[in-house]
């Protein structure tokens, strides 16, 4: 079976299991809890039956707990909803064994400190209160239960037996302290859950969050790395060095290697692998060869064109991801302060060629804001039509000059497109776009820098290639806010539209999942006209491992989850 087929099948499978999940559990639960049967893909707050069947953690078989109120209208303040894991956990008892050797090329941890490094979650070091399942639904994780008491009140109960690496139990006070530090440490965190939220310890394990306004994203936001649970390595310390994950670091040499061992007192029991060694190998080719020669057992996020190079000893797969490759445009200066130029630019790019050149045809050309098929409502907002692009420019006053480059009022249609080598597909896209857009009348200079953020911060740039994880929370608000909201972390082009701002505000307080998707669609409609960013393609998540050695691997569309307790070696 070739890889393209595999992607299609896995995507089909995903949708099928997902819809199945909604039909099985989600719908009934939604009916029971919310009183409206709207199986909108991707917003079922509970993992339900599907999750139990395919879940990563055998410990959790989540079920809804509808604690206080009966069914009501979506806006009903008395309605209760939430997530719950089974309090009694079937702990793993088997002794950990074997060694797993991995090589990674980016997002390598620099410090075991949740406040200083946001790359700890993929390695099983950091845990959050909730997490996303591979089916892009939400389930409790370090929390046993997340309950909405009323639209602004949430109760989170920590799992029985949850412990920090130092052996102390995770208490409600620890959660409160961790949240306070997260707000102080991550400005982005403040935009998602208001720092004015009042937190009270109800009992040893339960925290009550009282948000200033209703917050629809709350349970999803708990799954963000930014709201990880940690405690200082010395009492009263400012760091977040003690975590709760199933694995803990025994050795970390920056930019070189990380060694993990199971945390014996983890709430789920000791993790199955006795030793995990992770090497940092920035060269994708060397990583690939290392897997082929058996020096490592597993490889993650390698360039898709390498899929053809593996022999039969390697199991390789490309699965849909939530990572979108796009171009951020600088709206503060010419030529992209002209809306017509932005639309023409987007319309002139043939994404299918980009998919071929950058992803060896393994990805999906993208004309929508969110990736399709991962549970978000999304509509095509961009197209490819070179004739239309030319026509747009003509009508916008951009005339072809003597050298084939369009000119308007003495301003040439020339700009620099930044790229970076960290994600292998981006520079090929840029080089292809440069060549594709030449006949349309664009003069593009491609420039590869190591760190684009450094450049975009200065304001002295025109357009930059980017790769964004669109589903870190499983809720549309997070990325819409980051990408299109004023001052959002990914909004480097400084796009501001008051209508979008007001819709984002509506989205923040909207509790009904279906309504949330509708608001998201309205925002996407505006982005269709304004074209603040150009969406290009969704690359697959590529994983390869040695057959017979690695077991229990489930691909996850969100690259925040890599090493789970389901993973074992033989």
């Amino acid at each position: 079976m070739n890889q393209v087929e595999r992607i299609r099948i896995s995507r089909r499978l995903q949708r099928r299991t997902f819809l199945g999940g909604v039909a099985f559990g989600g719908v009934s639960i939604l009916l029971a809890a919310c009183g409206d049967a709207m199986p909108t893909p991707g917003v079922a707050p509970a993992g339900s039956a599907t999750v139990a069947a395919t879940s990563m953690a055998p410990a959790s078989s989540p079920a809804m707990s509808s604690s206080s109120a009966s069914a009501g209208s979506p806006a009903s303040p008395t309605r209760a909803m939430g997530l719950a894991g089974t309090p009694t956990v079937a702990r793993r008892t088997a002794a950990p064994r074997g060694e797993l050797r991995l090589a990674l090329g980016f997002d390598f941890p620099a410090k075991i400190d949740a406040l200083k490094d946001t790359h700890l979650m993929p390695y099983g070091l950091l845990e959050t209160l909730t997490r996303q399942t591979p089916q892009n639904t939400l389930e409790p994780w370090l929390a046993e239960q997340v309950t909405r008491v009323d639209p602004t009140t949430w109760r989170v109960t920590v799992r029985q037996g949850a412990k920090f690496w130092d052996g102390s139990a995770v208490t409600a006070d620890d959660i409160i302290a961790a949240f306070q530090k997260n707000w102080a440490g991550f400005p982005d965190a403040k935009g998602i859950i208001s720092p004015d939220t009042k937190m009270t310890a109800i009992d040893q394990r339960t925290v009550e969050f009282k948000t200033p306004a209703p917050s629809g994203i709350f349970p999803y936001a708990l799954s963000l790395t930014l709201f990880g649970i940690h405690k200082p390595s010395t009492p009263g310390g400012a760091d977040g060095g003690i975590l709760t994950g199933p694995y803990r670091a025994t050795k970390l040499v920056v930019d070189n290697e990380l060694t993990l061992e199971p945390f014996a007192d983890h709430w789920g029991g000791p993790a199955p692998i006795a030793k995990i060694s992770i090497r940092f190998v920035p060269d994708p080719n060397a990583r690939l060869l290392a897997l082929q020669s058996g020096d490592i057992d597993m490889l993650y996020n390698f360039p898709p064109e390498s899929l053809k190079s593996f022999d039969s000893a390697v199991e390789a797969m490309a699965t849909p991801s939530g990572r979108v490759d796009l171009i951020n445009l600088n709206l503060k200066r010419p030529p992209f302060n002209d809306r017509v130029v932005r639309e023409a630019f987007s319309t002139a790019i043939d994404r299918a060629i980009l998919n071929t050149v950058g992803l060896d045809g393994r990805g999906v050309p993208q004309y929508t804001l969110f990736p399709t098929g991962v549970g978000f409502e999304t509509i095509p907002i961009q197209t490819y039509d070179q004739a239309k692009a030319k026509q747009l420019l003509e009508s916008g006053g951009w005339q072809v000059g003597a050298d084939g480059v369009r000119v308007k009022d003495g301003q040439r249609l020339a700009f620099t497109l930044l790229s970076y080598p960290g994600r292998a597909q981006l520079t090929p896209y840029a080089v292809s776009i440069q060549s594709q857009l030449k006949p349309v009348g664009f003069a593009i200079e491609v420039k590869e820098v190591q760190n684009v953020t450094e450049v975009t911060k200065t304001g002295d740039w025109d357009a930059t290639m980017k790769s964004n994880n669109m589903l870190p929370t499983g809720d549309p608000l997070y990325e819409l806010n980051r990408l299109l909201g004023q001052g959002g972390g990914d909004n480097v082009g400084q796009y501001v539209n008051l209508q979008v701002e007001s819709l984002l505000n509506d989205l923040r307080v909207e509790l009904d999942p279906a309504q949330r998707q509708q608001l998201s669609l309205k925002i996407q409609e505006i982005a269709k006209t304004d074209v603040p960013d150009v969406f290009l393609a969704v690359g697959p998540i590529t994983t390869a491992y040695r057959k017979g050695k690695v077991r229990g691997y489930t691909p996850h569309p969100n690259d925040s989850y890599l090493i789970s307790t389901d993973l074992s070696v033989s």
Partner: protein
Amino acid sequence: MPVQSRVQRFSSWISELHPTGRIALSLLLCLVLLALFGPWVWGQGALDQHVELRLSNPSLHHPLGTDSYGRDILARLFLGARWSLLGAALVCAGVSTIGFVLGTLAAFGNRFVDTIIGRLIEALLALPGLVPALALTAILGPSFPNLLLALIVTSWPSSARIFRSLILREREAGYVESAIALGASSRVVIFRHILPNIFGPALILATANFGGVILGLASLSFLGLGMQPPTPEWGRMINDARAYFQRYPWQMIAPGLCIALTVLAVNLSGDALRDRIAGERYSKREMPPRSRRAGSTLRDVAAQVSPLPKLTQRAASGRFSGTEM
């Protein structure tokens, strides 16, 4: 002198070269011609993308196949040769100019200036090959001109050092001393008398570094600090081919061989020319004095460049020897 006899003299001079040297020189000439006219003669565009033909095997139309964008690899190699040779030539010229200026300053300036320049040279020679150039390019921002600049800034010391001793030696020569005695200004002495006399050795010095500079350029471009895409450059082509080289190894082998062949041709030609000139000067069995400081004769230049070890002057050599890659 009639042109005819000049050409004749030159050709007879060339024919007296070592056969390896002659072969290397003709190879180098071929490479230069290919770099100059190759892209023009070979009709394929080095930048034309034909996605439908991407990663195709060698064929009559594309003798070396196409890369991941469907661009003709042969055409890219031709264009890449241009940048490699031009870049190395510019770096060598820059290094020689700085070397000449600072060498002159050290030789003609007072003791203080001499000491300062001397210390600077010594310290820079203690810094290893490519990393300072790498750091400087990264700080200036990756681009081809910046890369050339960084290579010049970090590799002038060995050249300045040799220029200094060359100039010192010439200054002590009788004709210069008489010129000074006749009241010639320093400028006249430097440009009228010394420069023409050290021109030959200076040229040798520059060519001796040429091969090393090509390797340095390729290494830094390989790291992504040189020519920006889509312009082809050999080092960058090797880097771009890495993702595909398990299935299309020639995409990486070809530019690597081009670099090796060019450096080989340059080094061998340089050796042959150096031997030829050194032989000419000292054919009369006149052995230069082995003084420690200013004892720089042409042979010493050849020695430092080749580089033969000198107990007291050894750091000068081998800045771009292969070990640094």
